């Protein structure tokens, strides 16, 4: 089958992982990730293109499956991975202590491994394998957090491990329950954990079991996705990991888990008579996440924790969008891309600015624009975009979510959403302005910036700006076809 090419999307990173173990020096490993991941991303882009041009792909044995929804997520994931890989080289190159070979090997192997695991999650047609992939991402990324061993990074890793393992274990219970519901309707065989199959028979599933399953899935994957109040690991892990890893966590690790929830939404909705039960839950968790994140953003002093709470907020926004009908789904998917790109840039900048100032305490980071014009601008720009200023794309996706709320007559949601976003805006802006424009504590020597660094700042901002002012028709079609799957369409 032509779909067998999908195996490559997993196999190539796995091979990359092994390659990194074999490379002789830290430089070589970083170069291999910075060059290899974009190459893999480009190749995957071709596959994604294939899906949108000619329809979904499926491997023999129905193990892997790439439809519009997964293709869209794969594209976002590859974009974030590619950017972060390039940035990793810049970041580790600027560290005061260069990466030892052992650490570099660990980094390279785990980095590629995480890529493979996330690709597995996105591509998997089998709900069980999908769970295996999610758990694998947890385990593979755990050591990335404490790449630089320190008491707090170990603490963060431990919390990440325990909270996510326990949480994701519940997702497994949910998967089992879903499987049992499907098995009860099936004529035997091992198809009953395949998404395509479960999706086909969804209207016949026992609604009570499906609801029970979804509760477990929501709590389980929601823990990994950082929905409040299950988000507790998130600020710790994001703040302690090296910047490229934080960018990856916030940029796609969370979305991987949310993607899993997305997969179950149409099934649950079809099984429960399209009453909007699962969507209501998502809206609730989304709004709660926004409000809780707002509370912490107001009083935050650590830059990376600030960005982490922004992730809680934005994942909440995506969840709210998912709960608000077809337009909401469309907006949520759009927001996924916007948030990932913007947050990646945010963490890149936070990492580099943090290196320059030697701290992530926002009270001590003042005048970043003077200290380092490029990364200061990246930091300021990304925060302004994150809090939803037009003409950046996040404004547009938030506008669409508000519109979706109005169309579905969810006026309470609309009000809470706007209020929460407003509080976040107020809290984050206060920090952003002083960080960008304050008087620099000391005048750091001007550093030369490479073209690569310039591109890492300009490209995400330009993408956000362009998408905020102009959504090309093919891109809209892409989002629509992905959103249709969330609405219950077969492909």
């Amino acid at each position, binding site marked *: 089958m032509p779909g067998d090419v999908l195996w490559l999307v997993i196999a190539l990173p796995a091979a990359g992982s092994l390659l990194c173990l074999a490379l002789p020096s830290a430089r070589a490993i970083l170069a291999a990730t910075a060059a290899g991941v974009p190459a893999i991303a480009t190749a995957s882009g071709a596959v994604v293109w294939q899906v949108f041009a000619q329809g979904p792909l499926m491997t023999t044995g129905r193990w892997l499956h790439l439809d519009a929804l997964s293709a869209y997520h794969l594209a976002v994931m590859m974009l974030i991975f590619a950017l972060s890989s390039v940035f990793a080289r810049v970041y580790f190159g600027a560290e005061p202590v260069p990466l030892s070979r052992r650490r570099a090997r660990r980094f390279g192997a785990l980095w590629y491994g995480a890529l493979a695991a996330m690709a597995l999650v996105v591509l998997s047609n*089998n709900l*069980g*394998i999908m*769970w*295996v992939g999610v*758990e*694998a991402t*947890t*385990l593979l990324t*755990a*050591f990335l957090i*404490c790449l630089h*061993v*320190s*008491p*707090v990074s*170990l*603490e*963060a*890793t*431990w*919390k990440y*491990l*325990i909270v996510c*393992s*326990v949480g994701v*274990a519940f997702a*497994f*219970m949910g998967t*089992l*329950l879903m*499987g*049992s*519901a499907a*098995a*009860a309707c099936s004529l035997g065989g*091992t198809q009953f*954990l395949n998404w395509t199959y479960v999706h086909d028979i969804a209207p016949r599933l*026992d609604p*009570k*079991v499906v*609801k*029970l399953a979804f509760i477990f899935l929501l709590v389980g994957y929601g823990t990994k996705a950082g929905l409040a109040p299950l988000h507790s690991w998130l*600020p*710790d892990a994001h*703040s*302690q990991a090296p910047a490229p890893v934080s960018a990856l966590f916030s940029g796609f690790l969370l979305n991987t888990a949310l993607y899993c929830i997305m997969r179950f939404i149409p099934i649950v909705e079809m099984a429960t008579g399209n009453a909007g039960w699962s969507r209501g839950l998502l809206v609730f968790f989304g709004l709660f996440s926004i409000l809780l994140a707002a509370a*912490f953003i107001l*009083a*935050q002093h650590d830059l990376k*924790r600030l960005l982490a709470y922004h992730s809680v907020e934005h994942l909440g926004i995506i969840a709210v969008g998912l709960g608000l009908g077809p337009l909401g789904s469309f907006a949520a998917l759009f927001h996924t891309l916007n948030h990932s790109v913007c947050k990646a840039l945010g963490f890149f900048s936070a990492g580099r600015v943090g290196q320059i100032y030697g701290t992530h305490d926002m009270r001590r980071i003042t005048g970043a624009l003077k200290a380092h014009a490029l990364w200061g601008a990246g930091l300021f720009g990304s925060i302004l975009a994150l809090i939803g200023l037009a003409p950046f794309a996040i404004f547009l996706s938030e506008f669409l979510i508000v519109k979706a709320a109005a169309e579905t007559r969810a006026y309470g949601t609309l009000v809470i959403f706007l209020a929460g976003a407003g509080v976040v805006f107020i809290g984050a802006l206060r920090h952003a302005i002083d960080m960008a424009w304050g008087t620099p504590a000391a005048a750091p020597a001007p550093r030369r910036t490479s073209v690569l660094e310039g591109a890492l700042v300009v490209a995400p901002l330009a993408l956000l700006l362009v998408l905020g002012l102009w959504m090309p028709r093919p891109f809209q079609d892409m989002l629509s076809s992905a959103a249709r799957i969330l609405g219950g369409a077969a492909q």
Partner: protein
Amino acid sequence: MHGMTDGIMAALLVLNLALLGTSRLAFCITLVAAQGVLTGLLPLVSSSGVTLRTLFLAAAVIALKGVVFPRLLSNAIRGADVRREVEPYVGWGLSLLLGLGLLGISFWLGAKLPLPAAAPEAALVVPGAICTILIGLLVIVSRKKAVTQVAGYLVLENGIAAFGLAVVPDVPLLIELGILLDVFVAVFVMAIMIYRISQEFDHIDADRLSALKG
């Protein structure tokens, strides 16, 4: 085979309660290992019976949970040089009482939750599994040593495995193996973490890992 399943489940529950009542870490690990072995035996006595597939699975589970994990965890506590769980958030007596309460809740939940119609021989499996899961959570929440938390996680995992056996009898082998691999890696990673933590902090008290907040 009906009786066998019930017997294994009963043993699991007893082990759960024993786990709640013990403070010695080494004994904890032994209890969890025993529980792992019992869960490994469950597929053999379930409806699908002894087949090549179940035998293979049982062997893998018993090898991992009965042998590999205890070794990993024992090494970890030896490295950290701790023997006892002292001053848990919930005392031993209260833990046991809570355990009994959870047991009751499990039976109530087992009857109440809209679970798919379980096979008659698995009547005790579902509540037993739920109870194991809850007790695993209780251990994680109430105990302070990192290693006990891992033990709790394993108990939780055992419970879920039993639960899975009850609700979905024949999960494809590949998936089962994937899950096992994940659990193995999880425990492996956690053990390494415990080692690192003991190196860095000179203790493995999870409750003292609370510098990050707000």
